[in-house]
């Protein structure tokens, strides 16, 4: 696989000490002034220089979004791929050349919405790719639509009344995808970012890092209530390996378990040791504490940052693939494609052989364009005949052809405060099976004789005082007179109704029964 001398020789790296400048691409950086992405870019450029990996062994892959411009600004190999598909390309790169250091840059939209599925499979396979997910809780590149991590209630152009979507928690997603390294950091603390990124780089397997990143234009200060300098100590829990979990500017609060749930305790004078605080263990194989931490968030808890979980599996996916291929070569030797094609499962279909139909290209070449047009016309003629069948004609007839009588004896509309006794009298008097409850041209509900039988007869219900609304089915399905008979039958079949309210242009209501519909269809077919 064509490795060059310098790629394999670590000495060459030592001799030519890399600096941050080596990783800065000449391209103009086109992020908005003040964007959190700049700090992340600077941190990554410095970090890459210090990892002891030659520049030409880095590949930075991205999808679509502001953060996905990243590869242009890194003086490494890079691939700006298509929306959400960065993980697939990164997997391919890593499998083709496991010696490369592959970093995937994605965002909350690209990684969790458009490419959520791809990211899931990257992580569960444990491909040795480092994933940096820039989470600014908004679609920035496309000017501020709400994203899968946007907070509930966020008002933007696509959520004018506030988002009602439950946001995805990226860390919970990573943990449940069995990512072997899961961490969180934030764009205003380069030191913390660098330490987390370094840990990710040193991890064997997929490393997932959520970066709380500020979009200065479309979601400015979204993380400020947690990460602003003046509140940070109280609102963040810095996870440190082997240390008890404390926070507050004086480390005056601690986290401990109460049963299976975390709780906040005052550290007080007794000191940390007496309280039985949770001690952070990122190597804990059982992922439940990591998950518990990932779910902690303000206002009830501080937001944890740092490495939640770092539990390498032993063999990453790319190494496992390599291993499997090597084993197969050991067992069967080197094979070539020709040998595969000519192997045991290959046979040739000969023309004219009994029981085997030949399937040559001629089959496709047989029709000229004119012939194809003729065939299409034939098919359309067939389709017309099918459409002109009375059954289908009947189903496509508009309901107003059935002469629904609005407001006549076929349907009665009553006010919501009508008593049940009155309703029963009306139904009996007019021989009706149902009544519509209409309030100022708005259909409120429907009652049928089934409701009377099931809810009223032989019960203690006071029919004189109980309003009809107590037993009605509220907001029934309605079809417009412009809908077809097929639509009405569709509604009846799906909802198991025997009566369906019809509304006309002037908002008058009518009613159609299942017997009328079936009868109509049958009449059309019979004649």
């Amino acid at each position, binding site marked *: 696989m064509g490795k060059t001398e310098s790629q394999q020789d670590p000495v060459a790296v030592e001799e030519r000490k890399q600096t941050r400048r080596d990783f800065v691409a000449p391209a103009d950086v086109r992020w908005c002034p003040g964007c959190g992405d700049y700090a992340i870019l600077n941190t990554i450029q410095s970090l890459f220089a210090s990892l002891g990996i030659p520049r030409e062994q880095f590949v930075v892959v991205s999808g679509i979004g502001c953060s996905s411009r990243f590869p242009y600004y890194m003086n490494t190999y890079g691939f700006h791929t298509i929306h959400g598909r960065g993980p697939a390309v990164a997997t391919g790169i890593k499998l083709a050349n496991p010696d490369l250091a592959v970093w995937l840059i994605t965002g909350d939209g690209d990684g969790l919405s458009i490419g959520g599925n791809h990211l899931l499979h990257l992580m569960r396979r444990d491909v040795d790719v480092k994933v940096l997910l820039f989470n600014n809780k908004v679609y920035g590149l496309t000017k501020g639509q709400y994203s899968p991590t946007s907070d509930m209630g966020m008002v933007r152009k696509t959520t004018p009344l506030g988002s009602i979507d439950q946001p995805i928690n990226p860390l919970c997603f990573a943990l449940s995808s069995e990512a072997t390294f899961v961490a969180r950091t934030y764009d205003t603390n380069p030191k913390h970012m660098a330490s987390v990124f370094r840990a990710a780089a040193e991890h064997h397997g997929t490393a997932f890092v959520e970066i709380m990143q500020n979009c200065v234009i479309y979601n400015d200060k979204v993380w400020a209530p947690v990460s602003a300098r003046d509140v940070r100590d109280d609102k963040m829990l810095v996870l440190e390996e082997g240390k008890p979990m404390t926070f507050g500017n004086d480390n005056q609060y601690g986290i401990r378990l109460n049963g299976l749930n975390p709780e906040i305790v005052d550290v007080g004078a007794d000191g940390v040791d007496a309280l039985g605080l949770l001690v952070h263990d990122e190597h804990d194989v059982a992922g439940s504490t990591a998950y518990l931490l990932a779910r902690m968030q303000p206002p009830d808890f501080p937001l944890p940052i740092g490495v939640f979980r770092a539990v390498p599996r032993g063999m990453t996916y790319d190494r496992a693939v390599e291993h499997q291929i090597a084993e197969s070569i050991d067992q069967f030797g080197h094979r070539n494609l020709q040998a595969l094609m000519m192997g045991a499962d290959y046979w040739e279909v000969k023309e004219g052989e009994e029981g085997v139909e030949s399937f040559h290209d001629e089959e496709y070449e047989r029709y000229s364009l004119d012939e194809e047009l003729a065939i299409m016309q034939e098919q359309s003629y067939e389709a017309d005949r099918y459409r002109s069948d009375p059954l289908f004609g009947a189903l496509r007839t508009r309901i107003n052809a059935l002469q629904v009588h609005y407001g006549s004896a076929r349907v009665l509309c009553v006010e919501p405060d009508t008593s049940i006794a009155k309703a029963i009298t009306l139904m009996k008097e007019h021989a009706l099976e149902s009544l519509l409850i209409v309030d100022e041209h708005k259909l409120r509900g429907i009652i049928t004789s089934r409701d009377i039988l099931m809810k009223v007869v032989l019960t203690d219900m006071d029919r004189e005082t109980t309003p009809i609304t107590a037993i009605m089915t509220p907001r029934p399905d309605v079809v417009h007179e412009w809908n077809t008979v097929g*639509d009405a039958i569709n509604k009846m079949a*799906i909802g198991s109704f025997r009566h369906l309210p019809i509304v006309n242009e002037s908002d008058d209501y009518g009613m159609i029964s299942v017997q009328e519909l079936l009868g109509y269809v049958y009449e059309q077919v019979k004649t």
Partner: protein
Amino acid sequence: MSERQNKPREFWSTPIGFLPLQRAIFVAGDATVEEAIRLMQERGKGCVCVQSNGGIEGIFTERDVMHKFVEQSLANDTPIQAVMTPDPVMVSPAAPLSEAIEIFHDRGFHHLPVGDPDGGVDGLLSVRVVVDYVAENLPGDVLNLPPDSSIVSREADGG
């Protein structure tokens, strides 16, 4: 010709017994109205059959409840025989679906006992089952319609 051409004809001539019939619920001939209604409420059914030796003597439905019992001065222990519809219309399981539809349409029934008047009752054909049958067999024209077909283009997108 093609299968399509034959379909409608086959469709209406489907034997009634081929459709899923509901199990009929029965009360004895000496039952009271209250017993019958309680049974209907308990099972959530709009119809009970009144048993006679070896056959069906009458049928008591939602409509009978509405028109003969509710808001009437009828005692709860009135014998069912006084309010049932005696000798109800029945269809043979071999009869075509079209026959059932005509009865449903002309008489406004919701249920139709299927079987032999002198013998047993196979079950009840509910008008809802007929609707389901129509919908299932004509998915393109009934079941898979968009929520409001009047506002959907009949042309292929971009066509």
